[in-house]
């Protein structure tokens, strides 16, 4: 059999996303439970999602500490016993704290659901936040923080968020070493009592959600007492700095971390799909203009990419890379050049077609499988939307043309509005 290698095999039109339907059920005590069922799995995942992110804390580190302390001791089991139960049944328990949401995650074999789910409910309802365990946690976290502080990427990120949001806004990372010493068991217990309870969460179950798993969840989570939620949502003002250059010096740095960015586009904005497509052209995939120019042509860096992050109150957009100290200025110049090109020239048809296909494939990958869909759904719900978003965004992307993308570049990528942060060794200082 001889094959013609000179031309690519014919390509097929990419499929439309198959969004799994989810069902909603309200537990006897009023907790909302969402179910994404896939009978082919032998495992399930349970996410308990709280309005208890960093946004709601009165001082740094409280939210993340509170959620992470949940498996450190309850009225019924101490830290060692809780760990022993989850480990014995091969379950993975994980804690996440974002800006607005904090999460408790359990990944477990179906056959051990009866052993694992009740303990998850117990750590939610009956944690004691033992002082001794808290002290260990904080000492170890403080050390991790000191390691992070050594990284130029961390220094650049921190300065970038400070400029974008202002130091008083919780979106800015303002954690200092002393903050670890200011946490007390009382502060954590108060936040736990106020925020990490059955009255302030929803449950998302995905995988093989058998009637048995639903039953166990109802018998455990459905029986937790549910304080009426009278919590106030704090209000913060965004206080962005003036755009421009900011340098963080690190004497012993081998490379310099660069962040170039500004306010971005929110998930629910009309231009969101188009802006993501534009971002993909610039720095959102391996063949992007930034990668082709700065990595593949010039060899300044191992990687450069750009991304848009949507947050409930705002959004930001950013180019990130680490380069040898001597390439810092040249890299910034090239990034600005690529941005200016997007604002002045139309994206050629062939390139636009390629990026649309890549992005379409990437979106399909983002919701491939029941667990990917449950993660995607979790991040859409706070915006009042669900995974039908994927069908819509793919449809919108197909409609985008080059003049529209140039308009978006003019609207959203004005070089004069950029923050340019460099953290590393600045040779000409």
């Amino acid at each position, binding site marked *: *059999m001889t*094959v013609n*290698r000179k031309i*690519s*095999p014919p*390509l*097929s039109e*990419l*499929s439309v996303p198959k969004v799994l339907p989810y069902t909603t059920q309200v537990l006897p005590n009023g907790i909302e439970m969402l179910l994404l069922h*896939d009978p*082919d799995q*032998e*495992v399930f995942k349970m996410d308990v999602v709280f309005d208890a992110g960093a946004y709601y804390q009165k001082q740094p580190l409280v939210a993340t500490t509170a959620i992470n302390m949940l*498996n450190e001791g309850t009225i019924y089991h101490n*830290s060692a016993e809780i*760990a*022993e139960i*989850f*480990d*014995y049944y*091969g*379950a993975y328990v994980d804690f996440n704290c974002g800006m607005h949401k904090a999460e408790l995650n359990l990944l*477990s*074999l179906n056959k*051990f659901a009866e052993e694992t789910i009740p303990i998850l409910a117990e750590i939610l309802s009956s944690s004691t936040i033992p002082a001794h*365990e808290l002290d*260990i946690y904080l*000492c*170890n976290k403080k*050390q991790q923080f*000191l*390691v992070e502080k*050594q*990284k130029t990427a961390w220094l650049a990120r921190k300065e970038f968020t400070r400029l974008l949001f202002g130091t008083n806004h919780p979106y800015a990372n303002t954690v200092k070493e002393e903050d670890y010493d200011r946490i007390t068991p009382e502060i954590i217990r108060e936040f736990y009592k106020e925020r990490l309870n059955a009255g302030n969460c929803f449950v998302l179950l995905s995988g093989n959600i058998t009637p048995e798993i639903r039953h166990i969840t109802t018998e455990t989570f459905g029986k937790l007492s549910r304080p009426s939620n009278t919590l106030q949502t704090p209000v913060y003002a965004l206080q962005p700095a003036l755009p421009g250059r900011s340098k963080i010096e690190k004497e*012993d*740095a*081998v*490379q310099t971390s660069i962040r170039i960015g500004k306010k971005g586009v929110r998930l629910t904005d009309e231009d969101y799909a188009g802006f993501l497509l534009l971002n993909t052209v610039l720095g959102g995939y*391996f*063949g992007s203009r930034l990668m082709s120019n700065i990595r593949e*042509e*010039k*060899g*300044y*860096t*191992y990687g450069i990419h750009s991304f848009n992050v949507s947050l409930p109150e705002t959004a930001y957009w950013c180019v990130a890379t*680490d380069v*040898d100290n001597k390439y810092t200025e040249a890299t910034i110049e090239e990034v600005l050049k690529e941005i200016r090109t997007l604002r002045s020239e139309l994206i050629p048809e062939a390139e636009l*077609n*390629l*990026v649309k*296909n*890549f992005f379409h*494939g*990437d979106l*399909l*990958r983002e919701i*491939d*499988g029941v*667990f990917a869909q449950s993660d995607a759904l979790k991040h859409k719900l706070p915006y009042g939307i669900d995974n039908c978003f994927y069908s819509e965004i793919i449809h919108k992307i197909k409609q985008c043309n080059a003049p529209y993308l140039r308009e978006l570049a003019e609207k959203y990528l004005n070089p004069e509005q950029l923050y340019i942060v460099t953290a590393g060794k600045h040779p000409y200082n």
Partner: protein
Amino acid sequence: MIKFSRHILENGLTVLCNTDPGTPFVSVNILYKVGAKNESPQKTGFAHLFEHLMFSGSVHVKDFDREVQLAGGDSNAYTTNDYTNYYITIPAENLETALWLESDRMLGLNLSSQALDVQKHVVIEEFKQRYLNAPYGDIWLKLRPLAYQVHPYRWPTIGISPEHIEKATEEDVKTFFREHYTPDNAIVGISGNIAEDKALKLVQKWFGDIPSSGYRQPLLPQEPTQTEARRLVLSDNPVPADVIYKVYHMGSRISENFYVCDVISDILSNGQSSRLYRHLIKENRLFSSIDAYVTGDTDPGLFVFSGKLSEGSTVEAAEAAMEKELKNFIETPVSDRELQKVIHKTEARISFSEINYQSKASNLAFFEYLGDAELINNENKKYEQITLEKLKETARELFRPENCSTLIYLKK
């Protein structure tokens, strides 16, 4: 349980196919049986540099990435000490594009001197980003040559130094390609939304006419048995905490020894109920983090301990406590429950990994490289056969002081 078919084409290419109707994608994974261990000691880091060049265009394909992306696919690769692994995930309807691209770059590269030059720069920046500009990033650069004196595992995949990467020539690239990038030195693993026989037919169509080289890799020098304890102390590092590494020589990935050592490492440090976590982090608080794991190399590998000291702990106290745990492991019997816990954990780990078609494609190729793809379905049994007596006996043999290399990495 993963159902798959296995065929060897006439040119020696091994093909493993698994059907997974739960995804709209297919993963095409190609493992080449060449890694950093096959490099010349004077030009280390070459296998990895070469991996970068595999994306720089082949006989009929000017721009590899462009074609992948146009088909809605995604592609990447990695290099280990033992092998080099490439994968493309692509919507199932465009599978042939992936096979066209992979077969064309197996057929021949179309390398420009400019591409070589640029990728050298890129890899040197990678070296800096991962190993020199990161706290604790250089530890394995120092630890490998301490633990291995003869075997090529003594250098990491990135290479001994950026200077080695500078030295690569076009001639090196051509020779390396000719010797190692041939169908009889490669394994294709496919998993995703495609019937097994259809996938095989398409692989045959695109790869069937690529000639094999018949090249045989020279035998690697094997590491002699270590006979005395080794120790290296590195001071004045710009890090906030001291770190201790202790590594012990153990068996290869397919040896029975590997499975026993893996269980020992799990009992010691997998999960918050493990011994090291309980004793050294929670009870005596000498460490802020601690880990025990096995490297799983195809030649005899390492059992690794790494621990970061808590603020205020001394190296002497921390090291003594680590050694006491090992002594304890040999002298106090492991309980049935501890062993059962590890069996459950392993079962869960394998179940979770079987969810993903990408990991199935790469695991099929990897296990075939080890000797038999069927291992993918037999690993559970190997763990279940381990007895308490075997654990004790293996630990006694493993944790001898003269089998150990210790690296102490001190803060400024």
